[in-house]
Structure formats: structure tokens, C-alpha cells
């Protein structure tokens, strides 16, 4: 037997959340969900949590356990207890608690619906089956297995600071269609996703890739859409910054912080940050205005040319 601490909160009755301790059988092999079942069936039937398949495929039982969100049905309890000396089960974050470990996932679903998560008409559809080459289908691998459990959104640092940000699950789903050869709305999608609270609001903290229980890579999907949007010539604050950064690398091999800030913020943006700029000047923390190019600039130019040639060949295919 060992002690598990469980988050309890009933907004209709309780003033604030509390943690309740239960002594449970934590033999090796038992999952966190097994323990919650024990409590629910044997000790306190009012303990609320979502679960269904118990096989890490339905995506119902995501919770925050010892510092990480994941599926409680695929988390072994004992190793966590041994590692940390405690076992604490909490509801997912970034979503309001309905009761105990059950969160309101409306915000999650709203974001998913916002990206139009289904194939759009608009392409010439061949008669019979629409056969997509394997290489093209492989592009979707990083996103297509999502089971919509919400783990990534729970840990998303950008969503935490900005509830309007679409978040990793919705954007992974967005990529799954934007990169699908059969989709007829790729351009429109990329334009919509490039607006505020879309692909450029990801802070690349890598939490989503890290916690996804089935190894979907939402951040990688977001990065690929950024590249697709830039290739399609879609302008946004984010693309402006990335291109300004990129241009300085092609010029000197290294980042020119001054030019990048200047180009991506523009005069209005620079004025907005004038208080920062003043302090920077006072402390003489000013980045170099002209960056001395690295000796191997010829290499950089050559590699850029070779990559460009490869790209062109790929798009022609």
C-alpha cells in the first residue's frame, strides 16, 4: 500500500480545491488509472474522472501526474512514486475544472473546429480512388495519429499566456489537412493560420512534442506550416521576423540582431520598445549594426544555391 494524493474540487460546493490522500495498492504494473478506479469503486464513488478504453487509444483519461500531463491508463504508478517519493494526480491545465479530475474541454474543441478539420473540395478529383503517393502521405505522419486527449494543450506555455492561441492539437490537425495533397484549400488555410493566435504564436517550447502520449509532433507540424506559408508568400508579423532573421544569415553567416529587430518591428514597433532601447543604449548593450561576414561566406552562398536547386527540382516533380 502507498499513498496517492488526488486533486478534489467541486465548483458548485467547494470554495477552493483541496488534495485528498488515499492509501492504495501500488504493486508494480498498476497504472494511475487503476488506482483511481480502486478509489472510485471502494472508497469514494464521488471521485470524478474521465476514462474509457484503458488501452491508450481513446484519449479520455489525460491528467497531470507528478509534473507531466499524459494518459493515466498508460502511466505506471510505482516508478513515479519511486522516482519522486510522492504521487500527485491533478486535472489537466489550461482548461477549467468541472469537477475533480474532469476538465471542460470546450475550449480545446473550439480551437480544433476553428481550423476546419476536414478535407476541402477544390481540387480536380480523379475518377475512382484518389491515390496519394506514399511519400506524400508520409508527410502527414507527424500529425495524423492524434487522439485528441488534450495533453499538449494542458502543457502549452503559449496557450497559458494567451487563451486565444489555437494551440498544438488544433494546429497539428490543421497541418494534417494543409499538407494533404487532396485538400483544395491549402492556400486559404495557410493564410488563416498565419493570422494572430495561429502558427506564429507558438513559442517553440517543445512541451507538446515532449508530452504527446502517442508521439505526434505538433510543434514540428507548426514549423512546417510556417515554411509552407513563407514559401507561398503569405505575409505576417511572424514571417516578417523569420525572413528578416534569415536574410541576415545569408548576408553575414551570423545573426544581425540590430537589422532583424529593425526590419521585423518597423518604426512603430521600435517606438513601442523605445523604453527597452533607451536602457540598452544607457548600458551600451547595443548589438553591432554592421556584422562582419564570416570567412566562409562563399560556402554559405554555395550551399544556399544547392538547396535552392534541390527545392526547385522537388516542386517541379
Amino acid at each position: 500500500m502507498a499513498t496517492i494524493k488526488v486533486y478534489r474540487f467541486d465548483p458548485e460546493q467547494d470554495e477552493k480545491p483541496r488534495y485528498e490522500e488515499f492509501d492504495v495498492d501500488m504493486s508494480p504494473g498498476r497504472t494511475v488509472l487503476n488506482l483511481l478506479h480502486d478509489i472510485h469503486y471502494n472508497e469514494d464513488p464521488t471521485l470524478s474522472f474521465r476514462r474509457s478504453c484503458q488501452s491508450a487509444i481513446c484519449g479520455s483519461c489525460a491528467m497531470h501526474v507528478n509534473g507531466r500531463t499524459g494518459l493515466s491508463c498508460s502511466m505506471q504508478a510505482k516508478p513515479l512514486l519511486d522516482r519522486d517519493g510522492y504521487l500527485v494526480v491533478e486535472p489537466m491545465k489550461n482548461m477549467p475544472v468541472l469537477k475533480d479530475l474532469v476538465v471542460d474541454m470546450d475550449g480545446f474543441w473550439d480551437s480544433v473546429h476553428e481550423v476546419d478539420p476536414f478535407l476541402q473540395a477544390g481540387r480536380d478529383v480523379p475518377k475512382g480512388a484518389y491515390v496519394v503517393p506514399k511519400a506524400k502521405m508520409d508527410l502527414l505522419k507527424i500529425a495524423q495519429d492524434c487522439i485528441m486527449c488534450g495533453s499538449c494543450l494542458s502543457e502549452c506555455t503559449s496557450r497559458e499566456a494567451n487563451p486565444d492561441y489555437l494551440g498544438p492539437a488544433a494546429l497539428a490537425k490543421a497541418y494534417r489537412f494543409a499538407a494533404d495533397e487532396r485538400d483544395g484549400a491549402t492556400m486559404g488555410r495557410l493564410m488563416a493560420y498565419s493570422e494572430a493566435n495561429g502558427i506564429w504564436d507558438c513559442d517553440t517550447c517543445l512541451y507538446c512534442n515532449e508530452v504527446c502520449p502517442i508521439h505526434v509532433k505538433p510543434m514540428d507540424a507548426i514549423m512546417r506550416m510556417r515554411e509552407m506559408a513563407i514559401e507561398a508568400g503569405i505575409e505576417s508579423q511572424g514571417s516578417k521576423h523569420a525572413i528578416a532573421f534569415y536574410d541576415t544569415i545569408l548576408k553575414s553567416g551570423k545573426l544581425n540582431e540590430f537589422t532583424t529587430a529593425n526590419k521585423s518591428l518597423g518604426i512603430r514597433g521600435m517606438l513601442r520598445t523605445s523604453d527597452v532601447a533607451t536602457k540598452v543604449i544607457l548600458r551600451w548593450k547595443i548589438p553591432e549594426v554592421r556584422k562582419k561576414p564570416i570567412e566562409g561566406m562563399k560556402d554559405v552562398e554555395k550551399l544556399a544555391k544547392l538547396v535552392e536547386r534541390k527545392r526547385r527540382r522537388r516542386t517541379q516533380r
Partner: protein
Amino acid sequence: MKYAYFPGCVGQDSCNELDASTKLISDELGIELVELEDATCCGAGFVQDVNYDLALALNARTLALAERQHLDILTVCSTCQFNLDRANRELTEDSKKLAEVNKMLAEVGLRYNGTVKIKHLLWVLVDEVGLAELQSRVKVDLSNLNVASFYGCQLIRPGTLHGYDDPDRPQYFERLIEALGGKPVDYDERKKCCGFPITFVNEDASMRMNAKNMLAAKEKGADVMATSCPLCHINLDMYQGKAEKAAGQRIELPILHLPQLVGLAMGISPERLRMKRHIVSTKSVARALKPKEGTVVPAIGT
């Protein structure tokens, strides 16, 4: 200990105190740094956003430059660490991709065989210099300081890439702070994002993150924060005034670079560690330092 040193663009420019302090402590600790002067930027994710393949080719070039000297790479930036490491992993795990990239590298007279390892200064200090050795080099008592670490996302995630710290409960920084005689602050936000990658896109959100992290550290008693990433340093230090505005309260938390903290403990003066360059005053840190009993201080220049 000899490394191909990759100082990173920001570490040599607006945060050049990072480069200077890295060189000072490396000198003292016997870490020989052979600077990769001809290397390009790691791409920081932004070159990757525009042209992933080019970023990969440029990073392969950097790896090849280090390999030519038979050296592993030492980074002092969480973002450089991630981007170089990710490129390295991609090339070493996918022989087809490596062959493709090598075809391009051949045109600039280079080749990469996949033998280089990329290590952050934090890991080298803890694992290779060793905590006992560091402890023996401490000349200044930091016991008056509660030090909050700030890792920078890309140094701890993805855990499967780096393989050093447990991304859920990183400890390298804490162990280092302890060995130096400081008191590590236990707070969860040390694993979070500083916000800098979106400062140019959504400054409000970035500043909310920034303030929340620092206030969480202060609530747990932090007197000073130390970071292993110069990009985090920009947000935490340079933009702290803006974070204060976002939070509607003063923060006033001095922010050190990792090697500055090590340098202070070893008796290197704040001036030589270029702490005057910081936007948030570090005077409170300097005031809290006292000579360690039984040592002659300052041993290493003033």
C-alpha cells in the same frame, strides 16, 4: 578537456558578457576552447522556419568543421544546443539524408561522418569538470543567495534528444548551484518558456509569461536568477521593465548568465564578468557575496 567552442550569435553580440565570462571560467577550470569562428548561426528555429533544408546544411557544415578538428562542440545557449543537436541527430539517424547533405558539403570541400557530440556548458561543468572540483574552486561564499535556475526550453526538451536531464524535473542547474554554495530555489517555472521566441510576434503574451516565471521564482525566495540561455536572458533582463508593466508590479530580479554565477563563486570580479552590462542592476548580488572562510579573496583579479 578541449572543445570546439560555439559561442552563438547573441552570446557574442548583445549578450557578449556571456562569451567573456565563459572564456574566463573555462580558462580557470582548464577547459580549452577552440572557437569555431567560421561557423554560421544555428538558425535558432527562424532559418528553419524559412528554409529547413538550408538550416540543416549550414548546421552540417558547422558539425563538419568541428569534426575536422576531432573535437566535440561546446555551446552556451539552449537554442544553439537544440538546433545543432537536432541536426546532428537527423543526420546520424538517417543515412540517406546524411549522404544527400554530404553531396552538398563536398562542393565546399567538407564532409561530415557523424562523430561529433554537442554539449552545453552546464552539462560539461557538472559531468566533466565535476561538482567536487567546482566545490574545491569556490572562493566566495554564496550562501546568502537563493538562486533560481532558468533552463530555457530547448535545453531540457525533448528529453529523448539530449538525454541529460529529466525534462519533468531537471536537476543539473540545481546541483551546480549547490556545489557553488548557493541555495537553489525549487520552483516549477524554471522549466517553462521565457517568452522570447514570440516577443516580436505577440509581446503581450510574451511579457505575461516572462513576469509569471520571475514572480514565481521570487515568491519562492529567489534573490537572483541564473540562466543557461542568452535568449532567455534578453527577455528576463532586457525586457524585465516591460514584464513589470504587464504584471503591474515591480520584479527587480537580477539575472545572471550561468558562467557569471560560476565566475562569482570562483572569485572573479563582477566587473570582469561584465555584469555592468545588464539592464537590471546586479548590485544586490555583489553585495551579498562574502569571502569564504579561509580563502584569500579576490584571488582572480578585480
